[in-house]
């Protein structure tokens, strides 16, 4: 048949091969482009590559506009065959890696850089949140809605009312993530956090108190996905993207539905990979708030529905424990670099699977789950994506 490829060549295998971060800093520091450049530079140099080697680029950033993914490519002299502007909040990072892997399988690109980050000044973060989506600026802004804190705290209120979930249960996650952050030089929080300090912290948007909330900061994160032939020439351990799923606006028009689609994503990921939650050596779960981590634990099946409280109370989720969660300290203890928060868990996952996490290395890590969640709008986060990654043993 004319016009149809009858001889399909074997599909290239996409491999995550490198990661990079900019040096995080509090607000009013370097600008967005500086952070994006540092993360790109760190990621490419670790792989021995340069911008001219890149033929695919995904960017997520709230503060880079009017710049976008293509003007970043222009700035860095990249000639692209694929590009994606991630506008999916805390799900942008996982989505970009899933899409990049698919593009490499299709042969449309061979070396795709996924980068995300932001830089904030005083007041710019609140401004971003007040106009985050049309429904927010129109309907929630006039209520003094409290930003993401105010919109998502009701998840915890309802979970507590239905299931008896307690702050001291959720707080254990924050305390553990802080222990991880003490082993991460890029974390902005470098002092230990006790459960008492967590419990006694001042209220922000009850039931959220200070240590339930991420600190907005400036920073950027990047990972690199390449085809297997390029990976072979780089000579670093590769990480396979076994399966990725996404869902958006999982429960249209409903507000008190907890799930952003996690149980459906979970079912499909476990079915596609042949693995189950117990096979994961770690989970990097989007952590704007501990209750959101709890809901992901339930949705993906690490514990039963409604049981995240008792699970976090009785499970060692440290890097030395049964299920290491957010092994780099997560956004809660590193800082939330805007859209960079969608990528920080991928950077940590790749580093762990390349066995380069140093003092915080999960011993012999072979595979893990990475999950993103975000685009907080009218009463809920709209975007969800998750991926299962595995160290390639070649």
């Amino acid at each position, binding site marked *: 048949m004319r016009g149809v490829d009858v001889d399909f060549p074997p599909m290239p295998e996409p491999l995550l091969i490198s990661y990079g971060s900019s040096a995080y800093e509090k607000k009013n520091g370097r600008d967005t482009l500086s952070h994006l450049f540092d993360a790109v530079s760190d990621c490419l140099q670790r792989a021995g590559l340069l911008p001219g080697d890149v033929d695919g680029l995904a960017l997520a950033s709230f503060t880079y506009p009017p710049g976008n993914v293509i003007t970043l490519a222009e700035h860095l002299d990249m000639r692209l065959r694929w590009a994606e502007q991630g506008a999916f909040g805390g799900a942008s990072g996982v989505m970009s890696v899933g899409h990049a892997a698919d593009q490499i399988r299709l042969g449309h690109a061979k070396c795709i850089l996924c980068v995300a980050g932001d830089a904030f000044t005083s007041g710019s973060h*609140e401004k971003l949140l*007040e106009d985050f989506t049309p*429904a927010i600026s*129109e*309907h*929630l802004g*006039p*209520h*003094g*809605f*409290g*930003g993401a*804190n*105010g*919109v998502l*705290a*009701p*998840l915890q*209120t*309802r979970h507590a*009312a239905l299931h008896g979930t307690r702050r001291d249960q959720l707080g254990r996650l924050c305390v553990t993530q802080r222990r991880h952050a003490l082993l991460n030089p890029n974390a902005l929080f470098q002092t230990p956090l006790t459960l008492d300090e967590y419990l006694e912290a*001042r*209220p*922000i*948007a*009850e*039931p*959220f108190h200070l240590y339930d909330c991420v600190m907005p900061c400036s920073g950027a994160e990047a990972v690199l996905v390449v085809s297997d032939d390029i990976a072979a020439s780089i000579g670093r351990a590769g990480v396979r993207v076994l399966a990725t799923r996404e869902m958006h606006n999982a429960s*249209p*028009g*409903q*507000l*008190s539905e907890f799930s952003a689609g996690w149980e459906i994503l979970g079912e499909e990921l476990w079915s596609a990979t042949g693995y189950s939650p117990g096979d994961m050596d770690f989970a990097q779960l989007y952590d704007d708030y501990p209750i959101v981590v709890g809901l992901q634990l339930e949705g993906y099946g690490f514990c039963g529905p409604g049981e995240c409280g008792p699970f976090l109370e009785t499970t060692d989720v440290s890097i030395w424990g049964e299920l290491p969660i957010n092994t780099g300290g997560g956004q809660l203890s590193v800082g939330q670099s805007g859209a960079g928060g969608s990528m920080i868990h991928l950077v940590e996952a790749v580093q762990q699977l390349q066995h380069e996490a140093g003092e915080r290395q999960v011993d012999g890590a072979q595979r893990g789950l990475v999950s993103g969640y975000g685009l907080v709008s*009218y*009463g809920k986060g709209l975007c969800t994506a998750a991926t299962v990654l595995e160290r390639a043993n070649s």
Partner: protein
Amino acid sequence: MSALVLQRCAECDYIANFWRIGCPRCLGQLAAFDAQGAGVVTTFSIIHRWVARFDEHLPIVLVVVELAEGVEVMASLVGDDRVNVTVGAPVEVAPEGWSSKSQFRLATGSTN
């Protein structure tokens, strides 16, 4: 603002929980109507910190209300007793609200 205005579809009776340009279910036209203004709190948060222009209203009680019409809306409560809100508390539209959007108060004869 006292009345709670919602939109209903003339074709299929869909009721929108926030303003839509047209009916998401049947693509028909939506028309505004005055809702009963009564509902039940399904969940809430109590906000202690936000941008300075709302300081005089703190703490702000942000609520999800399931309205008598069957849709869930997000709004805030007014009244000195607003922090006594609970999941399941009945609420009604408050005529004395400070927001440009409809606000609610704990209904007379509720928990407090």
